[in-house]
């Protein structure tokens, strides 16, 4: 109860702050400064670097926001894994095919899926437009599909390409594209939806989750819309959309009070014409970029602008990012980083470029965010749900690694460490490999893409739990190896930061890493002169989980 009251106060506080237009005008016209730059970059990207903060600090709000949005890309910088561009038939083996053939297929898709996650994480690290990757991930979590059901990694890749192409384009165009996206057609059973045999899955979710929101349509609307989408299908061998006229129901449908011979595209246009659709998207963007509690009036206003612009995504983003609520002091550090933000952000801020990013995608999966495999059609719930006792410890264990390997290099041998009573870090996020394997298995982490679950065909699981453990173990070792190979030195990183004295440099480090001052203030570890101890304390601070 105490938290709720706190939240209510926190929600009102910015109004008090920004109620004075004169003050607002001054703030908007002044340079955003290093704190402002950090805030904008952390919210719209992944962990800013000291250099990026310096670059943005002299800009005024509007210019800074325009620069972020102006960076938008429609294609990834990083070349995809070659298998993603292959043209061989992608049809999974039939039920009648042999166990070996099916096993080989599943293995190939799992391997390709891990490569694909690594590729996406590499792009997040390498991109010159972090907002593009943040929005691609945002749409992945809005128009959810999961490799668990889609199975074919190449289809997941193509969907990712589509999401990126429209990430900062038009929401309407994105909605139309995603409704015909092959991975989506498999994920929400569109391929099963035929005139004689309507399947409601996509029709329901497109209204409930993608556009209108729950309670803004009837069960009848769902059934009628399913008829309109019938015949939207997939050429299985090429994995491309095909409209099968013979399977389409061309009759009259009544949807949201309108009657006509609607097809799928017409239904999507009906949905886009609803105010509720723009409001749902803007409310979600608010929670992603501004604060956990959207202001209903502001959401309506921005949603109106968004809809009138023809659903130009940058219009909505610009309005949100230029709003006083976004910049309010009371809204700094009020959002919880997603695991991917934590992992990619830490690597970016510490200016580390791993040779292979796949182990870091696995690390994020261990914290509850397995790219390409959201838990269900609603996606990752986000916010406070990112943090439970299990995931918080996984997050803390992960960041603790960054201060650990330099220490190990200083301490040459295991026996010496043991004699000194020091733990020997030896596996994924510090847990011994067997525990990592257990954890993966215990948590049902097919998620990690390491274990095949049966597809929607109900094919039997082709792997035993032991095989799954073995794979989790290998993954754990890969993460450990990746950490060792980073060769990251906290000492060097801190030394390179601006500042004349060690204290100045520590202050600069905290400005890069923390959105607000440390929570664990009194413990003194933050004043630690030893760079390793200082970095460990800073990354372990509860505030590091926030953005």
């Amino acid at each position, binding site marked *: 109860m105490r938290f709720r009251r706190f939240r209510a106060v926190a929600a009102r506080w910015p109004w008090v702050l920004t109620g004075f237009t004169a003050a607002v005008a001054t703030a908007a016209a002044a340079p955003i400064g290093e704190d402002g730059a950090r805030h904008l970059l952390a919210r719209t990207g992944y962990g800013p670097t000291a250099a990026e903060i310096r670059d943005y600090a002299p800009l005024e709000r509007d210019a800074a926001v325009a620069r972020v949005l102006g960076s938008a890309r429609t294609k990834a910088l990083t070349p995809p894994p070659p298998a993603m561009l292959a043209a061989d038939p992608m049809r999974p083996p039939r039920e009648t095919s042999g166990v070996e053939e099916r096993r080989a297929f599943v293995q190939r898709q799992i391997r390709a899926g891990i490569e694909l996650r690594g590729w996406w994480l590499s792009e997040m690290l390498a991109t010159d437009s972090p907002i593009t990757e943040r929005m691609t991930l945002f749409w992945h979590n809005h128009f959810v599909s999961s490799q668990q059901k889609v199975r074919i990694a190449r289809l997941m890749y193509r969907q990712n390409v589509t999401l990126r192409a429209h990430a900062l384009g038009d929401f309407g165009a994105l909605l139309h594209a995603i409704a015909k996206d092959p991975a989506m057609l498999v994920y929400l059973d569109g391929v099963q939806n035929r005139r004689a045999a309507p399947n409601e899955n996509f029709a329901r979710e497109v209204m409930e989750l993608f556009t209108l929101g*729950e309670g803004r349509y009837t069960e009848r609307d769902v059934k009628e819309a399913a008829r309109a989408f019938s015949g939207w299908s997939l050429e299985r061998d090429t994995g491309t959309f095909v409209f099968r006229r013979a399977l389409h129901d061309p009759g009259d449908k009544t949807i949201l009070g309108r009657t006509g011979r609607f097809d799928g595209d017409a239904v999507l246009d009906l949905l886009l014409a609803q105010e509720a659709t723009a409001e749902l998207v803007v409310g979600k963007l608010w929670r992603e970029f501004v604060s956990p509690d959207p202001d209903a009036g502001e959401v309506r206003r921005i949603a109106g602008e968004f809809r009138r612009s023809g659903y130009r995504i940058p219009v909505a983003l610009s309005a949100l990012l230029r709003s006083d609520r976004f910049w309010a002091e009371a809204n700094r550090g009020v*959002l919880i980083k997603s695991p991917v933000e934590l992992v990619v952000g830490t690597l970016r801020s510490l200016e580390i470029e791993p040779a292979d990013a796949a182990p870091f995608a696995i690390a994020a999966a261990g914290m509850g965010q397995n790219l390409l495999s959201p838990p269900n059609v609603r996606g990752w719930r986000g916010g406070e749900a990112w943090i*439970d006792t299990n995931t918080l410890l996984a997050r803390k264990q992960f960041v603790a690694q960054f201060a650990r390997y330099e220490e190990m290099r200083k301490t040459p041998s295991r026996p010496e460490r043991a004699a000194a009573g020091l733990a020997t870090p030896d596996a994924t996020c510090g*847990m011994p490999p067997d*525990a990592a394997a257990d954890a993966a298995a215990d948590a*049902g982490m097919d998620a990690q893409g390491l274990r095949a679950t049966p597809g929607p065909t109900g094919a039997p699981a082709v792997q035993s739990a*032991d095989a799954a453990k073995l794979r989790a173990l290998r993954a754990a070792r890969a993460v450990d190896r990746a950490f060792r190979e980073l060769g990251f030195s906290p000492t060097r990183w801190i030394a390179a930061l601006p500042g004349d004295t060690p204290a100045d440099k520590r202050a600069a480090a905290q400005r890069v890493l923390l959105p607000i001052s440390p929570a664990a203030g009194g413990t003194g570890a933050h004043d630690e002169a030893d760079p390793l101890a200082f970095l460990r304390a800073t990354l372990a601070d509860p505030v590091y989980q926030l953005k």
Partner: protein
Amino acid sequence: MDRRRFLAAGAAALAGTTAASRASVAWAAAPAAAGAEPYARLLVLVELKGGNDGLNTVVPHTDPGYARLRPRLALRRDDLIPISERLALHPSLAPLLPAWESRELAILQGVGYPDPNLSHFRSIEIWDTASRSAEFLADGWLARTFARTPPPRGYAADGVVVGSGDLGPLAGGSTRAIALADPEQFLRRAKLATAAGERRNAALAHILKVEDDILNAAAHLDGRHAYATPFPSGPFGSAVRTAARVVAGDAGVAVVRLTLGSFDTHSNQLGTHARLLGELAQGLAALRLALIEIGRWDRTLVVTYAEFGRRPRENQSAGTDHGTASVHFALGGRVAGGLLGATPDLGRVGEGNLPHAIDFRSVYATILERWWSLDSRAVLGTRFEPLPLLRA
């Protein structure tokens, strides 16, 4: 009901328990002292995520409607496990037979609620918060229960959630819920938690509360108990093993929540459903044997739940779409085994869904009143009639 009245009312219930926990020993030794513990009786909730197909779980195979509605999905009569003249269990549920035969398994037929919602997310929210269909409540029903009658501070946690991030009915309030994958790993890592800090916003307050929950749980938890009972392999089997280890020690835990899924079988249901029911039955059978092994089964109540069942008529993808009322299981050493509720009458079902025979809040009322001797109306808002689910 206040603590004092509970003490009087709960005396009989607690006197019946056998292998004594620390809490009940303390109470028995000093009956006048505060601290008699309703939560010495463990509740294990198993969420069947995605909505389980009740008709293919406990099968009304003699109802001619069954074959008519399920031309592709009807299970072969020869494969089924008969439990009454009209009903039979899915073959994957065979591991539950010993519990059924010792009358420790109750089958709750037609559990649902009026004006059902067919959205996964809204419907599970209704179940988790025990709200009416059109009512929005913020906190889970167990969070509300614990807000009124908190488990002792000395407990390792109010609730332990194994293998899933979301806290379900434990979410909200100041419930001390911990999410666990592996107890040993948890204890190894717990030293990374931070003691305290200033709660400057809601997100930070949440993180600091979780840090606090970790430290408290780590101070009490001992997850090392070695069982002679074997546990099934696979994620659900592992989760059951973790649950059994967590409740074996003296740690004190009021509720354990497990999840299994996804039961959202819109297409090609048969194989997936058989596998999931198999995992469920093997897991629950192992839990029963493990808790019998440590003398805890008489003080354990296991209840399954889900957001909804599936539609009686199969869809054209050899699957089933979102439905309404469904069948659920309750198991435990004190469960009065048998059939409760009403077997669905499929004769009248066309395209529609099944009416409910048991309001899910009656199940909760049974847990609150009969298992924990608490005031159910205070938690549920209205009085729901408890079910004759437990032996005296």
